[in-house]
């Protein structure tokens, strides 16, 4: 390979390496700026992912959908589209799951985590909320210790646009989780 060709190929590689994260950023920024707001009720736990720092892992009530899923296309690992509607409080409800992009105004692209003939569990595209390395375990402690004694009102505020979902804020008792953690510290 001539030096010029090597340098041209190198430049193309560098461009691709920068375009990939840039497109990720653009897609998310566009969703945050123009997406519709939906709330999802959560149940956080806290694993550790060395690659991405600490985060609160989130599961959603809306992730499990009952229905007739005996069709062969609804298998574990497949990508599906969940049609979303809002209830009076602004919480999301999955009204349909389809294998193709639906005509509905609001829908989310998600992967099937688990499938049986009458129940689907979806991996919604906001299954984690990154926090500081000290905040995440604190959040976990608060949830785990108190969960037994009182019901916490926890939910994720998300933006949804053209199948993409981006988590905007994790709320506990209607406060952003960091503020809520600070208020808990203040109480103690």
């Amino acid at each position, binding site marked *: 390979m001539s*030096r010029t060709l090597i340098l041209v190929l*190198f430049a193309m590689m*560098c461009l691709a390496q920068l375009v990939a*994260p840039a497109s990720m950023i653009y897609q998310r920024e566009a969703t945050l700026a123009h997406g519709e707001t939906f709330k999802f009720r959560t149940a956080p736990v806290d694993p550790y992912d060395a690659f*991405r720092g600490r*985060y609160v892992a989130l599961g959603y009530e809306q992730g499990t959908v009952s229905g007739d899923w005996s069709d062969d296309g609804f298998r*574990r690992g497949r990508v599906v589209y969940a049609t979303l509607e809002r209830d009076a409080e602004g919480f999301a409800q999955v009204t349909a799951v389809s294998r193709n992009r639906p005509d509905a105004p609001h829908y989310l692209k998600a992967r099937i985590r688990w499938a049986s003939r009458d129940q689907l569990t979806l991996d919604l595209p906001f299954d984690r909320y990154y926090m500081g390395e000290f905040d995440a375990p604190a959040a976990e402690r608060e949830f785990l210790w108190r969960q037994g004694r009182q019901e916490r009102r926890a939910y994720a505020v998300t933006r949804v646009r053209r199948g993409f979902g981006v988590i905007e804020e994790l709320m506990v008792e209607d406060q952003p989780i960091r503020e809520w953690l600070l208020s808990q510290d203040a109480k103690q």
Partner: protein
Amino acid sequence: MNQHRKIEWLYEQLPELVAKGVLTADAAAALKQHYALERGKSGMPWALLFFGALGALLIGAGIILLLAHNWQDLGRPMRTVLSLSPLVVAQAITGWVLWRGRAKFNPLWCEPVGIFHSLAVAASIALIAQTYHMPGTFDSFLIAWMLLSLPLVYLLKAVAPLMIYLAGITAWALYQQRMGLHAFYYWPLLALAAPFVWSTVRAAPFSPRSALVQWSGVIAITCGLGFALGRGLPGLWIPLYASLFGVLYLAGGLAQRPDVVSGWLRPARLYGGAASLILVFILSWEWPWNRVGWHYWNTGRYTHIETLWVDGLVGLALLGALLLALVVCIRRKHTQDLLLGSAAPLVALGYVLASVQGALLSMLLMNLYLMVAGIGLVIQGVRELRLRIFNVGMGIFSALVVIRFFDSDLSFIVKGLVFIAVGVAFLLCNVFLYRRKEALS
């Protein structure tokens, strides 16, 4: 002793030899000069590679940890700039190496540069994902990382990024399989690395660099074959793995050069032969043959009938390559490898038999084959007075005897006596062969 140590030893001996009058000072100086070049070549670059790579890995990992741990207080634009900075630094270093021209650097310098750049790609994607709380889709992360860093292998002509790539796509295939998906894209992904593997091996077939590339390749393809197979036809792995190992063994034998004896430098042959034998030993039990073949199609929700043709293509390619290797071996009268090389077609026959007749016949076939191969290699070893071949044959035969007796219901005394007899026979034969060889030479 490796070449480097031998030369070091010679250097230490020279003053004494001159003092004793064995060598003249001129002769000693001439020897020193002759080996000076070799001395400079060996040793150092590998240490450089190892520590360079280790350093790059540590720096890369350190950067990831530093940036990933806690940066909530930074705004999104600042985080984005920080996320992309390791990548830009890595691009600048790689760019500098390529701008100056690879030839101006020790080729081994390209390895740590490649490792660092590859890790920087991963760090940038992961950090952006963290900034936007992106979901943990590990497979899409891996694929993006691998495809974006694959060009480094070709541009830097570096082995370490290739190893990262092979490990990455194999991990991706495993993840896909765990998700219940059919990872058949593994094959085109593997093919993307093939030209580099081929050109490296062609350029210097028995160099350490080529050995490293081949070892990475054979390990990746062995794991990948298992991960990327669909689950439709039970036991399909048996003939496919046998063919893969058979092809490696025969191709390694055909490419062999008589002066290269180190097994480490001939991965295809050593690995293919050893893996073939291990596979046949596993198949000498009845359980792998139970419920295999086309009478037991898997039709559950997690099998992939619609993509079974990919498995079929892979199977045809492997069987075709095996037959080709066998034909070339026979044409070139390279018959000494046929004893172990015939394991794969026999396993394929065993698979057909097990599908039609049940497990028993195939199991017997494998035991019979191991016995014939063991005895055949012993005879070949004695005839050619080659201890290594003899010992492999003896090893196969005694392992077969020991395993079958271990399985049987005979008393411990009988088993013990048989084991002792096999051990004694092993030792005596070795002593006999060694003495004969000594006497003849």
